[in-house]
Every structure is written in C-alpha cells, then in structure tokens.
C-alpha cells in the first residue's frame, strides 16, 4: 500500500494492509449484506401482495393480518429498516474501513448488534402485521420494536465512529463525509421523532408534521446521502480517474444538509399554509445540491461511460442510481405539491428513493464488495446471475416508479375534476398502472434472489477454498 503512496501516508507507519482491513470487515459486512438483501426479498414480496389488493380488493380477503392497511406499512418498513438501512450500515462500515485504511473496531460486536437489529426489524414487521402499528408514516414499528432497534443502531454507529476516529488515512474522502453525516443524522431524527410521537404524545396536526419531517430527512438526507457516498466511491474507481471538481462536491454536500431536511411536508393538509409553502420551496431548492453533486460524477466519468458500462456491473448500477436521483428530485419538485396530494404518486417517492436511488446503488456496491470479501476475486461467481440481478432490478424499479406515478396522476386528475367518476376513473381506470407495480415488485424480488444466489455460490466457493470443504 505504502509503495504507491507519497510521504503523507508513510507517516502513518501503522497503516494496515488491505488484507487485514478486509478480514475485519468480513463477518459484519457479509452478515449485514446478506440479511439486508434477504429483507429486500421479503419486503418486495409483501409490497407485491399489497399492490395486488389495490385492484383486486377481494384478494386475501377475510384475514386481518394481510389487509392492505397492514401489508403496505409492513412492506415499506421491512424495505426501509430491514433492507436499506441495514445495507447502509454494511456499506458505511466497509467504506470507513477501506477509505480510512483501518480494521473495524470490534467486528464481533458489530455482528451481534446487526443480529439484534434484524431481530428488532422482525419483531417490528410482525407487530405491524399483528395490528400494533403506530400509524406514523415510516415510523410504524411499535415501541417494543423501535426501542431495541435504536439500541442496536447505537452500538453499530458507536463502533463505526470509533473506527472512523482510528483511521490511518487522515484525509476524509467525499464518501466519508456522507457516511459520517448519515450516521449522525439518523439517530438525531429517529430519537426526536419517536420522542415527540411516542413519548411526548404531541397533539394531532403536529404528529403529521413530525412524521413527515422524519420521513423526508430519512429519505432525502440519510438514504440519499449513503447513495451519494457509494456513487462517489465507485464511479471514480470504475473509470479509473480521480474525482473531478471536488469544490463543487463540497458545496453540494453542505447545501444538501442545509435544504434537504425542509422538504417533504408540501402535501400535508390541515396545517398552517406556510408549512407546505416552505416545504414545497425546499423541494425545488434541493435540485441545486443534487445537481452540484451529480456534475462532478459526470465530469469524472465523461468519456469513459460506455467503456465502464460494458466492463463493470457495479458501474451500471451506479449510472442508473444517479439517473434516478436526478429523476426523483425533479419529479418531487414539479409534481410534489397540491395536485398529487392524497395519491399514490406521493407514496411512490419512498419506493423510488429506498429501492431505486439507494437500493440500486447499494446492490451495485455489493456486487463489488461481496466477491472481495469471499472468494477474493473481482466479480461474483456467476456473470449470468449478476446480469439477471441488474436487469431485473432496473426494470423492477422502473415498473414500480412509473406504475405508481401514472396511477397517482390518474387519481390526481379525478380529484381535480368533479365531472370524473371516482370509481370508473380513479379506481378501475388505474388498475393497469398498478399491475405494472405488482410486476415491478416481483422483478425486484427476483433481482434480490439472483444476488443472494450469487452470494451463496461465492460463500460456498470460499469455504471450499479455505476449509477444504470441511465445513
């Protein structure tokens, strides 16, 4: 490592080797990755069942556990906490270890905390299905699940931050800014929101504001931030160039933190008018940091995009995730207001950010990380499965995003026009778009399964290599 680096790095004589760093990552990162993607399978399956009920109301009729009002929150929370945040932890740990050139502190403890996180998510999803949901968007887990969730997060974050503190590479690369911001932002918003909602019991209208504030911060700052961290790590790597225009990156980072948290309340009703007004303005304003963050990536990759697209599965995921980030930001800015209020259009923002912007970037990153931590090769064992995961992921995501958006716009037209018939135009009329959504969730589950199969192949090959097949 030191051989290629100038004097500034050799000063840290203790910088460990990549092998050492990766050895410390192996247990926690692989565990979090595998269970995270497993939650993607389960969450997508639950979301699929819920989406069917939107146009076949009698589907799964008669059993309270699988009514839409429980399935949909169970799915979204499984996807957010089980999949997205869990994978975000895996990526954060890996990025800190790699970019900081430091072995993880307490890998076994991280593994245990990850285990508890999974138990808490399981209890939470079970609680939602059992009818104990709290009723606040993205905070549906009942208290007996959200408290252990927070406790396990605290352990993961604490060890991650200790590791970051011990890094031997003192310069923090862009990705680490976002990782650090996300690791600190998440406990702040989670504890504030849950304290106000479940502890303080704030009255009616304030609940909607608090929950909306939390959901937007989770999506716009934490998950988008982790996605950007991943993009900034892998895009320069895939094209083999240094990151262009770092000054712009810095502007984008601070502006995202500054304005990102204000959005997301533009569709509240029955609140004082200034809240949706300011929030709608923030939804537009956040375009500036997003563009400021995407331009350096574009400049870095410009000219090598088609080569990198062919050469690297990871880069393909990154390119699509970056495109979706721009898309979802513009979409929310333009249509995020009054017109689409109370429609599926608004609900789809969560899906696009969790599964698309973050989800696809994360899947791409895992296609790079998992082989390195298992077989030690550059790619997962099966190219075919990697391709399947990519294409199913892309099409699934597009189908969910487009299907929900079309359905939502259809509903919005009915809401805006008194001459339209609610049942004919607003319910039956959007069934086609919703079938697309069902297909999309199916494809996403398939993408996750393909990755898991590849993962399993890699682990088997690794075990065969290091234990001679004894285990």
């Amino acid at each position, binding site marked *: 490592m030191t051989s290629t680096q100038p004097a500034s790095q050799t000063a840290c004589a203790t910088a460990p080797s990549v*092998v050492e760093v990766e050895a410390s990552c192996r247990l926690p990162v692989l565990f979090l990755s595998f269970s995270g993607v497993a939650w993607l399978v389960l969450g997508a399956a639950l979301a699929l069942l819920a989406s069917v009920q939107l146009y076949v109301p009698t589907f799964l009729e008669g059993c309270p556990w699988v009514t839409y009002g429980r399935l949909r929150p169970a799915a979204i929370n499984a996807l957010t906490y089980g999949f997205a945040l869990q994978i975000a932890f895996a990526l954060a740990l890996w990025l800190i270890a790699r970019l900081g050139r430091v072995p993880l502190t307490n890998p076994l403890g991280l593994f245990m905390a990850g285990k508890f996180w999974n138990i808490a998510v399981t209890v939470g999803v079970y609680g939602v299905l059992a009818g104990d949901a709290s009723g606040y968007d993205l905070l549906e887990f009942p208290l007996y699940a959200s408290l252990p969730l927070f406790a396990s997060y605290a352990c993961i974050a604490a060890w991650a931050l200790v590791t970051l503190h011990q890094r031997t590479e003192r310069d923090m690369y862009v990705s680490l800014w976002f990782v650090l911001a996300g690791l600190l932002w998440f406990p702040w918003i989670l504890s504030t929101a849950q304290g106000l909602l479940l502890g303080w019991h704030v009255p009616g209208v304030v609940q909607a504001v608090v929950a909306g504030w939390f959901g937007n911060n989770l999506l716009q700052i934490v998950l988008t931030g982790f996605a950007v961290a991943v993009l900034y790590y892998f895009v320069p790597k895939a094209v083999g160039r240094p990151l262009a225009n770092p*000054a712009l990156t810095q502007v984008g980072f601070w502006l995202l933190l500054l304005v990102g948290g204000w959005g997301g309340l533009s569709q509240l009703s029955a609140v004082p008018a200034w809240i949706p007004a300011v929030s709608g303005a923030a939804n537009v304003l956040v375009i500036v940091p997003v563009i400021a963050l995407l331009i350096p990536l574009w400049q870095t990759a410009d000219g090598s995009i088609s080569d990198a697209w062919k050469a690297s599965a990871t880069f393909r995921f990154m390119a699509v995730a970056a495109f979706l980030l721009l898309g979802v930001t513009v979409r929310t800015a333009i249509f995020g207001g009054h017109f689409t209020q109370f429609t599926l259009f608004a609900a789809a923002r969560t899906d696009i950010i969790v599964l698309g912007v973050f989800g696809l970037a994360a899947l791409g990153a895992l296609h790079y990380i998992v082989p390195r931590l298992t077989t*030690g090769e550059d790619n997962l064992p099966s190219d075919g499965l990697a391709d399947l995961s990519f294409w199913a992921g892309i099409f699934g995501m597009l189908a969910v995003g487009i299907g929900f958006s079309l359905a939502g716009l259809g509903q919005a037209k009915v809401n805006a026009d008194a001459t339209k018939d609610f049942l004919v135009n607003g319910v039956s009329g959007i069934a086609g778009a919703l079938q697309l959504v069902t297909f999309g969730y199916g494809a996403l589950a398939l993408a996750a399964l393909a990755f898991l199969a590849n993962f399993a192949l890699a682990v088997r090959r690794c075990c065969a290599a290091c234990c001679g097949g004894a285990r």
Partner: protein
Amino acid sequence: MSQKKSKPKPAPAPAPARVESEPTIAAGSSSAWPFVLLGVVLFGCFLYVENTGGAFRADIYQTGMKTPPPVIGESIEVQLYKEGAKQYAACAGCHQPNGLGSPALNFPPLAGSEWVLREKPDRMIRIMLDAIEGPVSVKGTVYDNPAMVPFREVLNDFQVAAIATFVRGNAEWGNKAGVVLPEQVKAIREGTASRGGAKWRTESLDPVP
C-alpha cells in the same frame, strides 16, 4: 463464515493483483455558479412562499390567503341571543332566571311584560340604561320599587342589545319580540345622555313610542 481476525490466514483464494488504489481527488478550483443558481432558485422560492405561505400566520390554512377567512355561520341575531343569555345574569337577581320576577318582593316580571314586548324596544332600552322608579303597571299589577339599578355605565351597547334581544325573543318565557341591535342602543344612549342619568317614570316614558 467465521474467519477470525487473529488467524492471519492470507486471503482465502489466490489474491494476485490486490494493489487496489482508493479513489483520489483531482485538483480543482471552486466555482461560483452553484451559488448563482441557488440565488435564482431561492428568489423563485421566496416569491412562491410569499404568494402561498399565508404570511406565516398560524391561523391561515388555505393556500393563497393572507388573512384568515371571516367566521361565517352564525347570524348576528344568534350571536346577540347567545351573548344575551350569558349577560342576563345581571338581571336574574331581581327578575329571576325564569323572567317571572317575584311579585311578593315587588319585583316585576319580564316574561310577558308589556314594557318588554312593545314593537319598538325604545322604552326597554331606556329602562335598562337609566332604570325606572315610581309606580309601574305590569300585566295588571302595579309595582312601586326604587330598587332597579341603571346599567348605562355597566354594560356596553352590544351587551345591552344582547340582553334585550334575549329577553324579548325568549320563547321559553312566551316572549317573541324582535331583535335589538347595538346601533339602536347607541342612538338612545347618546340621545338620552343629557338627562344626567335621571331614572325614568311611567309618565316620562309615555311619549316614547
């Protein structure tokens, strides 16, 4: 999957070209355009919030409004009657909550009283403002009691109108005379101010319609 860190088995599989470099940063100077763009978008945002934000007031819920909408629904009659029902406490001590007075103690009734139920409220307003003394005939009984107190300095125009509306229109007492408006009270209050607060008598009220 339980590799231990302490067992430094070199990377499990053949690990040749492992010298992977981490991403680096190119030299670059900062540019001002994000701030220019930010300024432009921010300007648009201010306009938007100015136009739709309800002037940052906590009581405006409707996009595009600068002041809260007037409270509609209750007519002035209903408002006066409701207010009068509360303010009637000022009279209830003598004329009783049921408006029947107490003839035994020389307090005349307001329910069914010809002084109250006249088509014009002019006499009643005068009695309320400056009180009445000397013999007064109500429903065939003559009362003579100087106890009635003037309310000129106690109640404002709205309150006098409210009580008068409540007493005159009280269906439970069998009264159904019309509403009294604050403007009527104001006019009489000003018109009789020169009397110096002298109490009315049956004779002095005679010329009043």
